[in-house]
């Protein structure tokens, strides 16, 4: 049952990450994922310090607030102060993350979050984080429920936003002329990314979430020819790596989230190498 819960939670993280990450990668905003993943921390800590309850709505609001704030600051620095885009990303998220870490260090002991949790998450402790109702019924681990809800939200978001997002990604001028709110969808995507980060970081850690975002879509991108197959393939690769990675981590007794990410990276490497070999073979054959 323990293995089942861990794999279930990690798979939910992988699926949500693969869907949102595919959109982010197509919009050439992979490094924005890195930025948001770091930038939700101060909002999270401040919300926690105000409400002192973990897993509350306030914490989610805090994380989403600082994720959106980071997006806005990055755009402001990039377009109003005219600093190049990658520098504005680097400047913004490191500062927000630093503020979060300073707050954590200052209020250490009052906050249930510690630096290890922020970095690595506690995938192995997922089965212990049980939700027991007032009646005493055991409803299973908390993260399963929160990630389940998140999956629903991501599903609804993808169904509604699939066409406008793709339009905004591939031809933003046409999208604007045909009445799509490009900026609204941009911020909606950022909101979903922040929501995803805050829901999954207790399980896999804020910095590790990044790998779940980036790696499966990048591998799928090498193999697929249209967006639907890209997203589907990214989900399949993500879940496959979770299952294999769990057993590898179990066998070698190392960090589970880390093993999943390394396996994902390995898959990307193998795919890239085999693709370029195929291209060479095609070239010599022709």
């Amino acid at each position, binding site marked *: 049952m323990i293995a089942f819960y861990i794999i279930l939670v990690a798979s939910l993280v992988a699926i949500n990450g693969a869907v949102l990450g595919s959109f982010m990668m197509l919009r*050439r905003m992979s490094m924005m994922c890195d930025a948001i993943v*770091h930038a939700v921390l101060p909002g999270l800590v401040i919300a926690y310090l105000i409400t002192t309850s973990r897993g509350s709505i306030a914490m989610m609001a805090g994380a989403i607030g600082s994720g959106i704030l980071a997006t806005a600051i990055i755009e402001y620095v990039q377009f109003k102060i005219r600093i*190049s885009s990658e520098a504005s990303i680097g*400047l913004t998220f*490191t500062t927000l993350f630093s503020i979060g870490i*300073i707050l954590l260090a200052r209020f250490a002991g009052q906050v249930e979050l510690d630096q290890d949790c922020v970095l690595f998450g506690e995938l192995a402790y997922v089965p212990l984080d049980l939700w027991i109702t007032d009646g005493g019924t055991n409803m299973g681990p908390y993260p399963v429920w929160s990630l389940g809800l998140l999956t629903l939200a991501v599903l609804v978001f993808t169904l509604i936003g699939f066409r406008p997002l793709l339009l905004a990604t591939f031809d933003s001028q046409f999208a604007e002329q045909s009445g799509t709110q490009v900026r609204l969808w941009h911020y909606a995507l950022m909101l979903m990314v922040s929501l995803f980060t805050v829901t999954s970081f207790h399980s896999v850690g804020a910095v590790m979430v990044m790998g779940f975002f980036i790696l499966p879509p990048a591998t799928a991108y090498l193999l697929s020819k249209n967006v639907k197959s890209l997203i589907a393939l990214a989900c399949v690769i993500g879940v496959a790596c979770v299952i294999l990675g769990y057993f590898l981590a179990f066998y070698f007794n190392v960090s589970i989230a*880390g093993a999943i990410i*390394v396996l994902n990276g390995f898959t990307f490497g193998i795919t890239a190498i085999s693709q370029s070999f195929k291209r060479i073979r095609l070239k010599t054959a022709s």
Partner: protein
Amino acid sequence: MSFLLNPVFLLVLLGVALVTTSASAIGCFLYVQRNALLGETLAHGCLPGIYCAFLIGGTRNLLWLTLGATLSGLVSSLLVDLIVSKTRVSRDAGMAVVLSSMFGLGVVLLSFIQQADLPNQNGLEDLFFGNAAAMSKSDVITIATLSAFVWMTLFVFFRKIQLVLFDPDFAEIQGVSPTVFRALISTLAAVSVAIGIQTAGAILMAALLIAPAATARLWTNRLGPMVLLSIVFGLIGGGLGTLCSSAAPKMPTGPWVVVCMTGLFGISVLLSRISRWKARLKSRI
């Protein structure tokens, strides 16, 4: 304020100053190359190298760990270039792929070291956020040697690097190979990041390369003055950050240095705004 004269504190301050000078100098070149986030890739890419070096050597000697860090940083930057040139993945996705995989590998190696219960592994987990207070005299000597190497190389090849950055075609005709000097910039960046990991931490090291360079860019349009200004801003930010973090117990150094550097950036933005308003008012009168 008696801790200001404490020799341990002075040593730490010296170490931080050395780290920030080389990082902020090389940061300008990355900034001009529009490659500022390479620092992030290098900093995350350093981690597996550091842990491998520890596993092989069994010591926490900074020179040895820095060697591992530099090598694996270079491997990451090569991997990014390889992914961008050989696959259809874009540059930012390539960087994100490499940095998250390397970070994952680092975490796996760290968890392996921790469960293997090897001797003198204390402080290895400090590498994520940095703990300058743990710096010893030999560490500072290592840092000083390596950052002197970075400055000397930058100083000697400044003209050629400038040529390659701004006009690679002309440089090629002049017999200055752009490939070689781009590789040189990446190598120097990897060395600067590697010596800073212990001070600023793998997660925030990128800011030490970006923030002073971006601040300096607001003040000048020329590369030479930009590098000098960037070093000055880096030193001020680094010094202030070290002061703040040592004023309270158990405060990590890296975050404070980053916040102070961004503070300088914010002040520079304000000043440039004010001067622009003044100029506009004058032109109206």
